[in-house]
């Protein structure tokens, strides 16, 4: 009866879970100490000390988890429960976890000061962030539909609350409500899809679903379609994207950064596993769906981004467009396609967090710098933030030799390779659309540097920016990562050089001990 457990396989997730569980308790205990004027190390505990303790605790756990993830990267596939693996810790999982942890660490570092600025300096923020992160890490690792759904909910529900964290702001409330309703709708569709897949194949394990997948069976097809629609909502690809601009705009800026990066990373990771393993026998039918999703997301995202006046809305549509670029990797569906997609996720995380960090720094007394034109003259008030923002914009636009260029490059070469290998012109069309869209995107990405450097600030509206030390660190990290990955992109792609991601995902999903 005693199951065969391997706790070390999921130790990074355990670190995150411990944080998510203990942080609420820590928060109330510290609040009580403040209330009763207890002292610690000879000083009366105040809110500032409490916040510092909470941030240190959070970052410590996250760094431990990250070190553990990176340190075990080369190990073979591991499972928590060998008798009944619901999650697989393989290279795909470890890479996703590393990117997710990086995104979370950067978000925490920016948030500590940002939360004080918007007057919501509560430890619950970090508890919810870690709970969501745990869901994301499990989502990328899930090889079982039950785990997939649970992880998706654990990722989403804290994020809904985080979107509404700035309770005094109506926009934040609107954001949380919209995200919650649309997100629940998407979860329900996905759950219905899972139920139909279970009904059609009699199993919830991805590897077994692949074995029982019958493209002739309407139940299977409908199930697969609903699961894909659920994912399409989560990654905000057109036509399932309408929630994104409102939600991104209303949510607290650091939450938007986390939402734009980590949710995409986790959802794309899970999508790779679902598409490459569970629904693999239906790949040809799904190809057409993904092709259209990719083309529409790229085009609509970029065109809509051009006409935005609000920086966060513009970045929201930009995020929709980037989701479209990433879908190209899913369309390609080969080792190089998925490797390109994962590399893109890493790069995208740094670019996007960098951009949102600059916006978070500019927030003062709860007032956001919302319009693009409000950034005018930033190079005088905060030259470093202006430089980082420019780097991020250039990188998002895909200007060589920055990281974003290589992200698109690997997706393109993957698509062209695959197209020549099987003689399929539709992939070439996709590659052409990607290049054309990158050109369109220059129109709005270059607008920010132009406004920041070439337009005079108007008196009192001049953006005031005094970044905290932690926030400056994040800016440095993002800037260095964008440049460094741009200079030696191969070293990062080579992370997957030896690993056949698809085979790894399949082995991981089907591994059952004798």
């Amino acid at each position: 009866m005693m199951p065969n457990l391997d706790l070390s396989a999921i130790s990074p997730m355990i670190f995150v879970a411990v944080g998510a569980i203990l942080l609420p308790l820590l928060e109330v205990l510290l609040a009580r100490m403040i209330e009763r004027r207890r002292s610690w190390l000879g000083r009366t505990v105040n809110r500032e000390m409490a916040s510092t303790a909470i941030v240190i605790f959070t970052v410590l756990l996250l760094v431990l988890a990250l070190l553990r993830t990176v340190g075990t990267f080369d190990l073979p596939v591991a499972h928590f429960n060998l008798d009944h693996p619901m999650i697989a810790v393989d290279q795909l999982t470890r890479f996703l976890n590393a990117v997710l942890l990086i995104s979370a660490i950067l978000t925490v570092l920016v948030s500590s000061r940002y939360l004080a600025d918007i007057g919501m300096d509560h430890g619950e923020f970090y508890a919810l962030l870690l709970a969501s992160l745990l869901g994301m890490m499990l989502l990328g690792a899930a090889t079982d539909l039950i785990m997939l759904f649970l992880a998706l909910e654990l990722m989403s529900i804290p994020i809904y609350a985080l979107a509404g964290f700035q309770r005094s702001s109506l926009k934040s409330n609107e954001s949380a409500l919209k995200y919650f309703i649309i997100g629940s709708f998407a979860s329900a569709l996905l759950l219905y899809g899972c139920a139909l897949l279970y009904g059609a194949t009699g199993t919830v394990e991805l590897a077994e679903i692949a074995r029982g997948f019958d493209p002739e069976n309407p139940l299977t097809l409908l199930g697969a379609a609903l699961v894909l629609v659920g994912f399409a909502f989560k990654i905000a690809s057109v036509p399932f994207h309408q929630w994104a601009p409102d939600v991104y705009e209303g949510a607290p800026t650091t939450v938007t950064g986390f939402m734009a990066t980590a949710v995409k990373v986790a959802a794309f990771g899970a999508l790779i596993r679902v598409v490459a393993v569970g629904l693999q026998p239906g790949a040809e039918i799904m190809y057409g769906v993904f092709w259209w999703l990719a083309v529409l997301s790229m085009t609509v995202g970029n065109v809509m981004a051009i006409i935005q006046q609000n920086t966060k809305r513009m970045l929201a549509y930009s995020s929709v467009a980037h989701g479209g670029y990433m879908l190209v990797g899913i369309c390609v569906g080969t080792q190089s396609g998925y490797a390109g997609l994962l590399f893109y996720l890493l790069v995208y995380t740094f670019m996007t967090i960098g951009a949102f960090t600059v916006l978070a720094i500019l927030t003062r007394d709860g007032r956001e710098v919302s319009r693009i034109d409000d950034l005018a003259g930033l190079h005088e008030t905060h030259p470093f933030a202006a430089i980082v923002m420019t780097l991020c914009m250039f990188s998002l636009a895909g200007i060589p030799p920055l990281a974003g260029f290589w992200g698109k490059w690997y997706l393109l070469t993957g698509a062209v390779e695959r197209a020549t290998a099987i003689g399929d012109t539709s992939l070439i069309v996709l590659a052409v659309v990607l290049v054309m869209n990158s050109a369109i995107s220059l129109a709005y990405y270059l607008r920010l540097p132009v406004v920041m450097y070439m337009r005079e600030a108007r008196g009192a509206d001049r953006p005031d920016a005094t970044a905290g030390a932690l926030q400056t660190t994040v800016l440095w990290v993002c800037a260095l990562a964008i440049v460094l990955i741009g200079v030696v992109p191969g070293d990062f792609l080579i992370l997957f050089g030896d690993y056949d991601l698809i085979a790894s995902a399949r082995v991981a999903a089907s591994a059952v001990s004798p």
Partner: protein
Amino acid sequence: MEQILFYVFSGLAILSAIGLLVNVRNTVNAALSLVVCMLSLAVLFIMLHAEFVGVLQVMVYAGAIVVLFLFVVMLLNLRGGNMGAESQPVLKLVGGAVAVGATVKLATLLDRPLKPWADIDPEFGTVAHIGRVFYTDYMLAFQVAGVLLLAGIVAAVILAKREID
């Protein structure tokens, strides 16, 4: 007998679900329609020998969740006139057309014979069976559910508590 019961309760479930939609302007009635729907579903589950799921359906859905719905309805206190102010006939038409089209398409697809179901162990779905599987094979999912509930508590407190220190 079983067939008659099945048709009675599935019919009741569908009717009450439609009733929920028709009553959308009177939210309390809609919530009560939902209770009827949930109870009918519970009967269907019990007829499938999924007693535990049936009991859950009554306890959690017809009980707790509908209570929450009613609280939210009273919390917002939206009287009839406030809703549907921005009625969009084009969207309604398109949505309706898609729904009807999808239903027809599905009905024609499902017309062909489905594969016969494999024989199911009579133990399958009993409380003891669920317990044995859930607390061994699905232990990880069980713990994740615990963290999810905790996150739910934290989220509710942070969003709904009037004054936070």
